[in-house]
Structure formats: C-alpha cells, structure tokens
C-alpha cells in the first residue's frame, strides 16, 4: 500500500498545513485588532463622528477620567478634573497634565481604555495625546488635551463612562530628540 508518490504528496500537504498554521498564528495579531474594534475592548474607540452636529440637551453622561503610571514610570500624570458632564453631540475637552521630574529627557506613550465596552463604539475622540508620543525635558511640564464627542446614538442605559490612560516609559525604544516638546 505504501507507494512512495502518495507518501510524498501526503507529507507535502501536511507540511503545507504546518506552514499555514504558523502563518495563522501571526494572522491572529490583526484578527485580534479587528475583534477588539468590533467589541469595543482594549481602548479601541469609534472613529470620526458622523452623527448630527446637534447637542442633545435632554441627556447628560458623566465621563470619568483615570490616569495610571505603568510600573517604573516616574512622571507625574493626572487629569485636571476627575470627571465632567457631557451632552451627547457636544465637543468636550479635558486637559491632562504630565511632568517629567527626573533629570533626563524621556519619552512616553499613553494607552487608552474605555469602559463600559458597549459604549466604546459611541465614543469619538477628535484629539488625543495618545495619538502621538510625548517627549519631556528634565523638569518640564505640559498640558495635553483630549477632545471627544459622545455619540447621540449611544444606548440610553449608559449614563456613565470611564476613560482611562496608562502611561508607558518608551525612552529606551524611542530615544527623545532634544528640544522637541512633543505634544
């Protein structure tokens, strides 16, 4: 029964499966991003606001702000206010403050997250310091804005949103260029 041609064919096919599954392992990376977007997890908020540019005065949503430093990140990092009240459709702004207390230039990256995840698809950021990286000279302090619109179509039962940022030290990965204040 063992004719060598079919053995060769079989082994080739099985090796094909192995290669395909190796590639599939890497394909899980973009696939994961797609799933996060679909489910609103992992800080993946909605894109550009395309709803009515009319403020919904009848409804108010509390938006809370959290700031966390990743392990070994020495910067001072906090929002100016803990929360604000937002009307759907209106542009809101919150200022986050960051200060580099060390004696060396450092770069940082903020990574956002939003809860509850059902609301992520209705949260539109028009500007965010998390879109770029920050470079701070020793002792330098900056104010960083985040502007957002809460969608008018957001489910009525969501009355409370939390926007949280974790600040990562990426100095090793992206050495700061002198005199670039970032922003």
């Amino acid at each position, binding site marked *: 029964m063992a004719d060598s041609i079919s*053995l060769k064919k079989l082994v080739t096919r099985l090796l094909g499966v192995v*290669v395909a599954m190796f590639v*599939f*392992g890497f394909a899980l990376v973009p696939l994961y991003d797609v799933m996060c977007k679909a*489910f609103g*997890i992992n800080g993946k908020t909605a894109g550009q606001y395309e709803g009515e540019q009319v403020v919904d005065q009848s409804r108010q949503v509390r938006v809370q702000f959290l700031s966390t430093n990743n392990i070994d990140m020495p910067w001072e990092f906090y929002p100016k206010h803990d929360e604000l009240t937002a009307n759907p459709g209106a542009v809101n702004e919150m200022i986050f403050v960051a200060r580099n207390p060390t004696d060396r230039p450092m770069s940082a990256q903020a990574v956002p997250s939003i809860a509850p995840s059902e609301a992520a698809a209705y949260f539109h950021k028009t500007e965010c310091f998390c879109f770029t990286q920050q470079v701070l000279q020793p002792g330098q302090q900056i104010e960083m804005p985040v502007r957002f619109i809460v969608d008018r179509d957001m489910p009525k039962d969501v009355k409370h949103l939390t926007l949280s940022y974790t600040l990562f*030290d990426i100095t090793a*990965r992206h050495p700061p260029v002198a005199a670039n204040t970032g922003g």
Partner: protein
Amino acid sequence: MSAVIDDHGHADHAHGPAKGLMRWVLTTNHKDIGTLYLWFAFCMFLLGGSFAMVIRAELFQPGLQIVEPAFFNQMTTMHGLVMVFGAVMPAFVGLANWMIPLMIGAPDMALPRMNNFSFWLLPAAFLLLVSTLFTPGGGPNFGWTFYAPLSTTYAPESVTYFIFAIHLMGISSIMGAINVIATILNLRAPGMTLMKMPLFVWTWLITAFLLIAVMPVLAGCVTMMLMDIHFGTSFFSAAGGGDPVLFQHVFWFFGHPEVYIMILPAFGAVSQIIPTFSRKPLFGYTSMVYATASIAFLSFIVWAHHMFVVGIPLVGELFFMYATMLIAVPTGVKVFNWASTMWQGSLTFETPMLFAVAFVILFSIGGFSGLMLAIAPADFQYQDTYFVVAHFHYVLVPGAIFGIFASAYYWLPKWTGHMYDETLGKLHFWLSFVGMNLTFFPMHFVGLAGMPRRIPDYNLQFADFNMVSSIGAFMFGATQIFFLFIVIKTIRGGAPAPAKPWDGAEGLEWSVPSPAPYHTFTTPPEVK
C-alpha cells in the same frame, strides 16, 4: 569490496539490531525509537517530579523554609514545562512508535529517518531548557504558560534559551505527528479499513492532526516573544501598540488543544485495555471515534475559557462558557461507553485494568471540576487558585499518567517478553492511587477557600491540608522509583510471556511473538 559491504548491511538488516551504543543513536527502527522515547519520558517524569517534590517540601508548612521565592517560581515553571513537553507528550509518542505499526500491520513508521531525528531533538531541547537553571539569572520563572510581559519585559536573560528549547520541541512534535499520520494513512495492512483500526490508532491519528495544527501556533507565539525581546517589535507590549492579552489568546489557541493532545491517546489506550479485561468488545466503537473527533474540533473554539477574567465581552464569555460545557457531551459518551463495556463483562483486575478503571473514575472527577471552572461567573472566584491546580492535576495525573502506566503494564509483556510481577504492579497501583488522591484532593478545598497558586507561602488556615498534600506527593513520588524497579525487573527476567498474554485481548500486536521481534510484518498480514 562493495559487494561485501552490501552483504553485511543486508545481514544486519535481516537479523536484528546493530551492536553497541551507536545502535541507539543511528536507529531507524520504530521499536528502538519507541523505547528511546519511553525512557526519555520516564527520565523527564522523574526530573519534573523532583521539581514537584521541591514545591511540596516548601509548601509542607506555611512560611519560607527551604527555597527562595525566586527559585520556587522556577520550580513551578519547570515542573509544568518538563511534565507537559518532556514526560507526557514523549511518552505517548513512544507508545505510538511502538504500537501503531504493530496494531495496523506495518513494518515500521512511514518516515523512519525523520523518526530518529524527531527523537534526538528532544534531549537537545531539554538540555537547553534545564541548563537555564544554572545560569546567573536563573531559569524560566514565569509559569509554564509564560504570559507576556512576565516572559518578555520582565523575563530573566535565559528566556532566549527557553524560546529555542520550545522551538526544538515543537519541531520534534510536528515531525512525530507527520510520521504518525503518514504511517496510519499509508501503511495499513490490506483489509485494515479506517473503521477497523484499534481505538489507540484512531485517537493518535486525531491527536497528530491536533499537533500539526497547534504546534506551529506555539512556535509563532514564542517567535513573537523572541522578536519583542531582541528585535524591538511590540506584539505583546502595550507601550509600542501591542497587547499582552493578545499573548494569552495566541498561547491558549495552542494551549487548549494541547491539553487534549495529552489526553486523547490515553483515551485510546484505555479503550484497548478495558475491553480486554472485560472480555467483551468495546461498546460503541463508532461513537468513540466520532466523540474523539468532536472533542478535537471543540478544543479549537474554547480557548478563552482560560481567560474569563481578562475582560472579554459578555457575549464572548457566554460563547466560551457554553462551548466548553459542550465538550462534556462527547466526553460523557466515552465514559458511558467504557462503563457499558465493563457492564456484565467477565471482569478481572490485573494492573493495567486497575489503572484503566481508576483513569475512568478519577478523570471524570477532573472533568466535573472542569465543568465548574467552565461557568464564567464562578470562574472569577476559582481563577488562579489551587482549585485550578486540583482540576488539571486530576485530568493529567490519573488521566494522562495513569493512561501511560496502564499502557506500560498492558504492553510490557510484548516489549520485554516477560510478565511483570503482578503483586508488585498492584502495589504500585495502590500506592499511586492513594498518593495521588492524598496530594490533589485537598487542593480542591484550599482552592475554594482562596489559596492562590504559584505562591511559596500561604495563610495558616491552609496548613493542615497542605501538609496532607505534601505527604501524598512524597508518597506518589517515591512510588514512581518503585515503578522503575518493577520495569527493570521485568526486562531482566520473569515468567516468559506468550504471544497473547491477556486472554481477552484483540488486535494484530498479539499475533507476533513476545518479545516482538526486531522486524515485524515485513509481509503485511491479511485483515479480515
């Protein structure tokens, strides 16, 4: 001149193994390679077991007595890695090498040279892995699941060795699996249709497909780690736009099928042994085949039940919860089939049967605690406690390991030509059975009471149960040295085994003499 050499080679081929050490290095004989795999697995079983002894010795009493926490972490990690990749998987590959050609009437494995290579990669891989324990920063200390960023940003220097060791093991497993599939699909004796194959062959065929599907994903996973550590990518680093949770998805996409890779061949072996000692054909052969295939399929769509607490959406939790519970259905089919096979059979309880029956009962206990863990809301309490440890040790120790012991006793007469000592075998069983339950049953209670896993110290209220666990573990560990003694005693002598030492046994492997000659089925047998 060349004629003489040819003659010589031919003579060797016809009459038996080469002499000396090089026989084992160069062998392409499936029985030799099977033996190598089994001995290697047993060595790793003792090594991984000695790591477990360190863990249990430290946990004998609350407080830190024997080892530093950093070393304790290396012990839990290495225990898991060595047992999973060094003991259980190679043992089943060894059984496959020995038994599959004998069971389907093939003269050897389909790719004998690759077979040799896939074995000899393993000692290299484990030398690399175990050597990390002696490096300045210590060995892997991030748990056998090596979650990023513990295994990337915060890993010891030796993590690169660990990654290459995993690559080698993966290549070895993939080649072994390709060999098993090629052998089963191409080398069956005339008349041996797929649905006439013994269940051990069936479960291995399905396991081999699982292996070639998920080992490459594991290889990809550790490759991404390697790139994150050395080449500045950010697959698992949030600072660079990646996500540590992605690691868990990629890992468990491999990891969940992996747990079935470790149990399906045991299902197959038990399905050979229970009919033999019940003197009845297996109840529901066809349903066994389909149940195995269903379990294999379901294993691909349940991985996130390991990560209920990372923050997956509610719909995801529900999907993975119900999909996981669904696995209980084909598994239940198997358990009922084994029970029905025994029903009204002429039962005798030789050592293989004792291990097989204990397998069915204790594996079911592990299955039930698995169902408890599958309940997403309850899992928030169980996550990372000793309840999880109790669960997976109940499916791996009396599951996979007892399945291997049962197979070893069942086929030892065929391998060695001698009967093992039945009294000693039964003693080994009872000591293992009591030791294993003493070790792992109390872990259910301390786990439910909230004792976290992977921590070298614990609160005082867990002290008594932990002492019981440790006593049981020392007992179970020492018993396995006794098993080594039994096996060596059987190799060196004992009552000569007939070709078919079990009167209820069926299958081609019993049609060749005991011990099985170096070359069997050089002309294929006719299967009716």
